[in-house]
């Protein structure tokens, strides 16, 4: 019983981590139609910023708060300089962002010397319930993920921001002809997606330690999650990430991890084949 509880918690917490990472990716893919191969590097930057504040002796939570803003701002700038040119050509966008990711990743690798560096949790240790130990930080991540998800949902469904974003991304010239400032919307959306990635990076770095390939590690998993969930909405990728995350944490409990690893991808691709619109067909928020 206790064991099952721990198992459920662990599986859930990994699911939450994947959701957190995919949030930004999903927003950019769903709403902008860009499969951003540099998204992993935004995660990495978030992690790196957190590490920097820690290394400079500042409180870690300060880095975690700063990360989404810094990465978001960077996203805004990159959108204006680079991403903007890619909207008409999604495949070129993949390659362009790939190159961008490569640059960021290798630069960070240079900065951290290719090492694996630990960053302590702001809330460390474990919550003990009888004989069970539950990681306090993983628990915190679950809570924050839920909060962020809720806020994103509200932002996109309750404000006209979501409406503007969707209009812009669907038919930019018509959106402009409806008085929407598309450049601003593009920039804001991309920045928002980047900021979420930055936040994800900041929160997960204590769990996984900092290394240059941190973001890359989750990228393909993220894309698969987005496809499974369904492109075109906010909820879709989130649901997809939940499924992929929990599945990849749960399967190793019941089978050889090496098999589980490949199986997740095979299952996902078969699922998408027979349900191309994904778990949640892309409409609305």
């Amino acid at each position, binding site marked *: 019983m206790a064991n099952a509880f721990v198992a459920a918690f662990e599986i859930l917490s990994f699911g939450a981590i994947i959701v957190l990472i995919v949030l930004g990716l999903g927003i950019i893919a769903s709403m902008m139609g860009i499969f951003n191969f540099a998204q992993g590097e935004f995660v990495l930057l978030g992690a790196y910023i957190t590490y920097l504040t820690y290394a400079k002796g500042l409180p870690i939570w300060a880095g975690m708060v700063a990360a989404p803003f810094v990465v978001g701002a960077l996203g805004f700038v990159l959108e204006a300089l680079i991403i903007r040119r890619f909207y008409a050509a999604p495949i070129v966008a993949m390659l362009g962002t790939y190159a961008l990711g490569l640059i960021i990743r290798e630069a960070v690798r240079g900065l951290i010397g290719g090492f694996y560096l630990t960053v302590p949790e702001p809330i460390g240790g474990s919550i003990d319930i009888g004989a069970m130990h539950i990681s306090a930080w993983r628990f915190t991540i679950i809570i924050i993920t839920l909060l962020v998800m809720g806020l994103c949902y509200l932002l996109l469904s309750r404000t006209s921001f979501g409406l503007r974003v969707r209009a812009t991304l669907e038919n930019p010239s018509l959106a*402009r*002809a409806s008085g*929407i400032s598309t450049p601003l919307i593009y920039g804001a959306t991309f920045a928002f997606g980047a900021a979420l990635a930055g936040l994800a990076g900041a929160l997960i770095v204590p769990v996984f330690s900092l290394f240059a390939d941190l973001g890359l590690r989750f990228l393909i998993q993220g894309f698969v999650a987005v496809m499974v969930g369904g492109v075109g909405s906010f909820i879709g990728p989130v649901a997809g990430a939940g499924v992929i995350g929990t599945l990849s944490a749960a399967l190793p409990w019941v089978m050889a991890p090496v098999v589980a690893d490949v199986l997740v991808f095979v299952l996902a691709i078969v699922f998408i084949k027979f349900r191309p619109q994904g778990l949640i067909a892309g409409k609305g928020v």
Partner: protein
Amino acid sequence: MPEFLDIKHLDAGYGRSQVLFDVSLGIPWRGGVAVLGRNGAGKTTLMKTIVGELPAWKGEVAFDGRDISRRATQERVRAGIGYVPQEHSVFARMSVRDNLAVGSLASKDTSAIDRVLAIFPKLGQRLDQPAGTLSGGERKMLAIGRAMLGDPKLLLLDEPTEGVWIGVIEEITERLIELAKSIAVIIVEQHLDLALRVADYAYVLDRGRVALQGEAGEVRGNPELMRYLAP
């Protein structure tokens, strides 16, 4: 008094190919103006240039006394130009409701949507359907409705009745005549009669040049007219 929309010696086109040559026209503060011409004459191009979707190569576009030829589309729209494009005139993946909501982003008036739905009751039954799956005519209604929601001071309509059922055309015509009493309306239309009922004044384009212009009745009676409209 300067015209409300004043276009002087406008050249425009796509890439290297010039479509409009030295086009000048003036649109008064109120009333309808028709732009006529055969296929490929450059009517759509003119509309796109006015709204800023295409850059003007040369010449001046002044709106409400200010030169807007360098302004972005969205700024022109916010300054009061409404536009119903000929093609791709709705947000296909968004619901009808959201399409209308986009139209009314700028205005605070929430009852406006109800007024549009009263004009096009058909849309009311389709509120949650993605606009891309609407029938051809429904789509046009939606596009017109959306443009009207922005409270424009100048409304550009590029073939608003293409694919619309006769009964509804009548309805739209009446609405436009009504509208033209308070704002300026530019209408590109193949339905000559309809266009000239809405418009007080008409321009006829031929191969990118203004070939004929004058009061609606005058143009209607001009023996040259048919020569420019026939292919």
